[in-house]
């Protein structure tokens, strides 16, 4: 029997990026906020100290700071006629566990989506005609526009101390930035990171073939920085241990490095760790959430009443909670009805290894130290006759040269033995790779529901993922990989290895933790779970943050848009709290 605790005004499920932003904003508005985190407490000191954080085996290979599948995983199949089987090892993506969430382990690749990304259906139909979108592709406009979000993108960028070069300020195209980006009100808070040998080569090669390279916007501080909350951040040292690691140096933006010094001092904020939320509780009307139930580390069950519930967990977990709590209509791919679990999407990545003639010292890097071309992203180019919509960026990220996982050998290198040894000896210091980071659209039969067989640690059914890449994604990815290969050939090299993404989606090799959808936002309650302010259509005191609200994916890393949407939702919550009603009337 769950022990009932005293009511709080706002309970947050999870304590990562989105929860930290909501907590900061709503405590400013005078609310009493509690965050429940399934993982443990961690902070820059002592958990990310250089005495132990730069440990590739422990963090990147054994994945110590991620969710353990024994506690929570999902089952997976490519098609509805297959038996879904549990993801027993983390592979394709790495959901976080612990305070700070993915904000601790991300690279800091921080993007704004394109203005056209938010109106993809309207844009595509207007530019190319309705026939351009296949019948089974369920892409939809977001219900929010780039212009709506621009002030909130700005807010997140100045919170994080983004290093970069603006390409479009107020409609004026600036040299050296991304000429395709939407107009921004001002430049980035910090100048771009220093270039390294490999990004310099990419920049020159891309220019040589007529593309428009620019430094990637980075949540790694190029200079010391005092952020919008008055928190001091330190200059990045290019140590090459960003992704899968916490930052020892207060350089990578995370809840710890940007918000906690302010938030944790507030008397109206509290959090509890090792508390796994297992249910959203509802009153008899089905129109009001009354709080959540959670289980602590010792297996004790608690009921935490709250006037407002905000889901701030990983995308899959938000959707799982809605399904096991029986909130909203579960999506049915046969009828196409229902919203919870609908429009799951992902990203399609491919890469091109380049072994250069020049020594690169790949280990000097940063998570978002990269040079990028956006010429083939979104609708930045004419898709007529290409056989696909969407696109992606091509980047040379120099995230580091960690020796177990970051070796980019030429094509045909032996896989082991003396030949392999010679290849790593000869090529490690000279090799790099480019990444094609492509969008994935939403489809009628790519979705999330509950598995009929497999259970999690708490006895709840596992989430079931049914997903595959479709013709649109294969064609787009092939096109992007060809463009990246063109750039590679323009770099003085002694070997190129193009690695297209072919065949069915596999849960095994790491691709990206940019899983999206399942609780989509939108203007129509028949095709979205939350309205344009991320408020549930059915349950107005229930809100959903994070990439689970993306109606389909774009060709960028999602965190910048997640941050902007969270600030946007926080503003809406302030209005809601003054007058607790649905913010959009049907």
């Amino acid at each position, binding site marked *: 029997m769950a022990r009932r605790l005293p009511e709080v005004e706002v309970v947050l499920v999870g304590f990562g990026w989105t929860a930290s932003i909501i907590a900061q904003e709503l405590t400013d508005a005078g609310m009493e906020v509690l965050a429940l985190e399934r993982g443990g407490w961690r902070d820059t000191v002592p958990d990310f100290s250089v005495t132990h954080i730069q440990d590739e085996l422990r963090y990147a290979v054994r994945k110590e700071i991620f969710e353990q599948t024994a506690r929570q995983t999902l089952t997976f199949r490519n098609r509805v*006629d297959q038996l879904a089987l549990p993801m027993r090892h983390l592979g394709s993506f790495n959901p976080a566990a612990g305070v700070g969430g993915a904000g601790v382990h991300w690279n800091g690749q921080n993007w704004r989506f394109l203005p056209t990304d938010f109106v993809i259906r309207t844009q595509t139909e207007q530019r190319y005609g309705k026939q351009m979108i296949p019948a089974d592709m369920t892409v939809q406009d977001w219900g929010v526009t780039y212009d709506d979000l621009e002030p909130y993108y700005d807010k997140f960028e100045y919170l994080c101390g983004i290093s970069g070069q603006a390409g479009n300020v107020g409609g004026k195209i600036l040299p050296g930035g991304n000429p395709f980006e939407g107009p921004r009100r001002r430049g980035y808070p910090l100048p771009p990171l220093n270039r390294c040998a490999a990004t310099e080569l990419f920049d020159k090669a891309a220019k040589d073939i007529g593309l428009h390279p620019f430094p990637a916007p980075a949540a790694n501080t190029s200079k010391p920085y005092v952020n919008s909350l008055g928190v001091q951040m330190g200059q990045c040292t290019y140590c090459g241990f960003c992704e899968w690691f916490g930052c020892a140096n207060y350089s990578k933006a995370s809840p710890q490095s940007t918000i906690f010094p302010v938030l944790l001092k507030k008397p109206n904020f509290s959090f509890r760790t090792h508390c796994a939320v297992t249910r959203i509780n509802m009153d008899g009307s089905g129109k009001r959430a009354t709080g959540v139930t959670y289980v602590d580390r010792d297996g004790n069950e608690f009921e935490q009443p709250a006037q407002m519930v905000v889901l701030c967990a990983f995308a899959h977990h938000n959707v799982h909670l809605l399904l096991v709590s029986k909130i909203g209509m579960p999506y049915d791919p046969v009828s196409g009805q229902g919203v919870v679990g609908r429009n799951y999407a992902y990203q399609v990545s491919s890469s091109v290894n380049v072994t250069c003639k020049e020594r690169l010292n790949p*280990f000097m890097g940063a998570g978002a130290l990269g040079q990028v071309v956006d010429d083939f992203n979104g609708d930045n180019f004419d898709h007529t006759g290409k056989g696909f919509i969407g696109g992606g960026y091509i980047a040379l990220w120099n995230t580091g040269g960690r020796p177990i996982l970051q070796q980019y050998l030429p094509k045909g290198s032996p896989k082991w033995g003396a030949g392999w040894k010679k290849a790593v000896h000869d090529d490690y210091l000279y090799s790099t790779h480019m990444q094609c980071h492509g969008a994935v659209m939403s489809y009628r039969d790519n979705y999330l529901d509950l598995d009929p067989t497999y259970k999690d640690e708490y006895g709840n059914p596992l989430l079931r993922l049914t997903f595959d890449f479709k013709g649109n994604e294969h064609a787009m990815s092939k096109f992007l990989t060809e463009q990246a290969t063109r750039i590679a050939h323009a770099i003085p090299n002694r070997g190129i290895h193009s690695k297209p993404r072919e065949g069915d989606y596999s849960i095994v090799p790491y691709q990206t933790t940019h899983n999206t959808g399942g609780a989509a936002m939108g203007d129509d309650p028949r095709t979205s779970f939350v309205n344009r302010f991320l408020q549930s259509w059915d349950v107005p005191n229930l809100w959903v943050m994070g990439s689970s609200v993306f109606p389909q994916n774009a060709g960028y890393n999602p965190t910048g848009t997640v941050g902007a949407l969270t600030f946007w939702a926080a503003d809406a919550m302030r209005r809601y709290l003054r007058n607790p009603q649905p913010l959009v009337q049907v």
Partner: protein
Amino acid sequence: MAAAAPVFSLSRRTFLIGAVAFSASLLLDGCGGSSTNAAGGPRFLQPGERDFVRAAIARLIPQDALGPGALQAGVDVFIDSQLAGPFGQAAGQYMQGPFHLGAKEQGYQLPFTPAQVYRLCIPRVDQHCRNKHRAPFAQLTAQQQDAVLHDLEDGKIDLGEIPSANFFGLLWQNTKEGFFADPIYGGNRHFIGWKLIGFNGPRYNYVQEIGRFGKAYTQPYVGLGGRDPVMCRLSDSATGRFHGPGCEAGRMPFKQSYGSLTTTNNRVYPAGHL
């Protein structure tokens, strides 16, 4: 919802896992005590298993003109320690049944922990070698060993419930890990792996050097345990145990000496260093 079609038949590749897991646990229980060397020797591998691992890693990353290989780097110590620890026991991994071998896109679906995979597979590989060459793997010629490893990699050797490519993949993954992980875990001894490729360790700060395009980085090699000799240094104690975190149960390696080896990256391994 469409019902899932039966995608496999009840054959040797589809098994009721209870029975298999039971026999695997018997195997583990049966040898747990005898494989433990109280004086700080191997924690998981039994003598025959250790012979196999040492012979296999010496072919996967051989010692040659480019420098020492996996054996000299202590990768066997690393693997033994990993198999004895949480990794070997699949701690934190979802191990609930029912187990079915699905499509390759669905990933690992066997009911065995990494430690069980080694324990089950090594005697079967040795048996295969005895059938074919009248000697266990460790006693074959290098050429024969390479052929066996290729056959394992290509899934051509029958290891019962475990596809041989799975076992090879695990062995090669662990070998690379041990060769390139920080020396505090018992492998990459004297930074042998890092010196091969030119990774100087977690040096932390490259603000000055990152702009020196094309220039060699010349600071000393360093690990989380400091400069060489790091925490896993040879002990002068009677038990021959390593000191330091992650290395407590390692066995003192054989004393070996080399002539000076110079690599094309101009890194020098001094004579008698190992």
